[in-house]
């Protein structure tokens, strides 16, 4: 029933659904959010942020493909460049924390706690 109705509305020139990519991006994003919130090790938190950035890239490219625009790919490249900068600075900060405290446990970095 459902599929018959869809077959009717689907034109001959259609490809994949947009929502496939958006839902994959949403799932990947939420897994990354869980990793950022739940992990203790600072390096693991950085890895989870990479998951989130990849989810964003999938969304950018999917919308670029939907609108036939190259802007999605261009901004995906910018996101990749920003991610490289972020990992470089992030790991340097993690290294300093490790050098000063001999631990990368984020629960130990509580000097600002009142």
């Amino acid at each position, binding site marked *: 029933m*459902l*599929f*018959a109705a869809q*077959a009717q509305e*689907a034109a*001959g*020139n*259609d*490809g*994949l*659904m*947009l*929502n*496939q*990519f958006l*839902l*994959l991006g*949403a799932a990947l994003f*939420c*897994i990354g*959010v*869980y*990793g950022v*919130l*739940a*992990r*203790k*090790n600072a*390096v693991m938190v*950085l*890895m*989870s942020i*990479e*998951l989130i950035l*990849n989810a964003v890239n*999938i969304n950018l*490219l999917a919308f*670029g*493909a939907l609108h*036939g*625009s*190259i*802007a999605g*790919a261009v901004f*995906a*490249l910018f996101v*990749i*460049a920003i*991610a*490289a*900068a972020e*990992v*470089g*600075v992030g*790991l*340097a900060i993690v*290294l300093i924390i*490790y050098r000063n405290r001999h631990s990368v*446990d984020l*629960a130990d970095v509580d000097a600002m706690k009142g």
Partner: protein
Amino acid sequence: MTLASGLLAADTPVAQNVFFYLMSAVIIAAAIAVVTTKNVVRAALYLIVVFASVVGIYLLLAAEFVAVTQILVYIGAIMVLMLFGIMLTRAKIGRETDLTNDNWWLGLATAVLLVGVMGYALIDAYSDDKLPRDTQVATIVDNSGQGSNTATVGDAIFSQYLIPFEVVSVLLTAALVGAIVLARKDRG
């Protein structure tokens, strides 16, 4: 529109769908492994699997230049940096029991809530949209009406997006100089 209609279209190319769901399954499984495994090095290796499978999704969207950049930058550079970070912070190479916060369930609740809300919103808003079949054969648009996505990306970066591109270059230089300054041994 139901969930099924958001995920499956009747008149879709079968091969692309099979490839998409195969890649999606690998991505989701490996991503969950990244955030749940008890071994830091293994998490980094699972992350490589995620990146490599996301490359497949990019190719499906006819973004071959982004796909190659992802391999070079993410798998080639960022993951090596991550592994260096793991080694330099002397993480235990074997199993480690203390990688997850005590209130991890709060993060889990947030993530489940977020995926529910986002999934509902996406299915509600976009379940009728289909990508044009054209994007799957490696051309989106070109000024002359032909050419590859790579040529189009290069053209766009050095004309329309020139200033953002230069800003990103300066930012990258500043960030890497900053990282070197921060990580130097003889600094205080």
